[in-house]
């Protein structure tokens, strides 16, 4: 599974890091950073949750 993160749209709520800290991080400005190119299988549920929880819809599952 691959995820795209739109750093322009991100509002730094931090919900993605709470939901899946193996997949997402925040840079010093609070903007989302993807930690992996491919989401490992065991993290897919967490990553899906993060996409669902993002308040600014900055995250998408791309494939």
């Amino acid at each position, binding site marked *: 599974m691959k995820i795209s993160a739109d750093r322009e749209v991100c509002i730094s709520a*931090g919900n993605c*890091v709470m939901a899946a800290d193996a997949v997402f991080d925040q840079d*010093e*400005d*609070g903007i989302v950073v993807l930690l992996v190119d491919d989401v490992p299988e065991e993290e897919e549920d967490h990553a899906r*949750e993060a996409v*669902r929880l993002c*308040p600014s819809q900055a995250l998408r599952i791309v494939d």
Partner: protein
Amino acid sequence: MTQAPELPPLHMRRDTFNPTAELREIRETDGVRTITSAFGMDVFLVTRHEDVKTVLSDHERFSNGRPPGFVVPGAPNIPEEEQASARAGNLLGLDPPEHQRLRRMLTPEFTIRRMKRLQGRVVEIIDAQLDTMGKAGPPADLVANFALPIPSLVICELLGVPYDDRDDFQRRTARQLDLSLPIPERMELQRQGRAYMRSLVERARQQPGEDILGMLVREHGHELTNDELIGMASLLLLAGHETTSNMLGLGTLALLRHPDQLAAVRDDPDAIGPAVEELLRWLSIVHSAIPRITSTDVEIAGVGIPAGRLVFVSLPSGNRDPEFIDSPEVLDIRRGAPGHLAFGHGVHHCLGAPLARMEMRIAFPALLRRFPTLALAENFTDVPFRSFHFIYGLKSLEVAW
């Protein structure tokens, strides 16, 4: 003459912790209905979880900005220039891209990593406050000794507000948000608040400290007017005072009414994370998000709303929508309630959410471990709820141990 209303507007009515049945009835039938706001205006109230999200994530059709000439009935006539100055820097009243410009200046101060660095200081503040409460009672007022001072001390420290100014500030903001006071009085309090904040901003311009105001002056001072700095700081201070403190007071009462769940929060270190989320959902202390204005004709839940009308979204109702969560009326701290709307949704999602979460995750277990026999020291029916406040909560809470 403005008289104190007998009942708060429909979307703010509660029966202790719970929204009233009237709100549920709207959610279960029409979904969207016109009600009368606290200012006597007709507004469209949106009550379902998905519809709340739709409104809050669509700033093109549901704008935070106010069209020219928009007036709140009963508000004193304020010159346009003064209004513009009072609006500057208030992120809640802005739409993208202007909103994003200001928000991005603040987000570095509220990252999860930044919160981890703050944690030690927050623990110290909480421990000191628990010492104070221990000396004050039993019995003691948990609101005055615990719920109010902790978030207040934390946000004042973050912003660089002198300790001695805290009491005045707290009194002013609490009254400012009390809907039973006449609008002119509340506007006067708002003016006093801004005058105070102006003094802090002017000081930070001269001598920027290590706090958020100092950071804003150092990093963005050339691109921000004093009005914007005042607006941003006022919003942070208000949001930092009035929200977490009410969650701590009301949340403690909720746990006292659910002793098995209280015991879990006290005894199981893994319980607090999900417990805070469920308390946020179940209590939904922010009765409605900032009103939006339709920029075009829209339809929500099959109800047509013409352009230029006010729309309220009910966060408590959205958070108790059975389409969102099973058994929504039940408090169940184990479930964690991911996707709740207590911090809002869309670009205005609470900036301070990581701070609020950290404070609550430390404060509730610390309180319950310091006073393992904590109990109500008054009848539940005598506990004074703040019925007329924009932010729901308790006026006081007598506890013993």
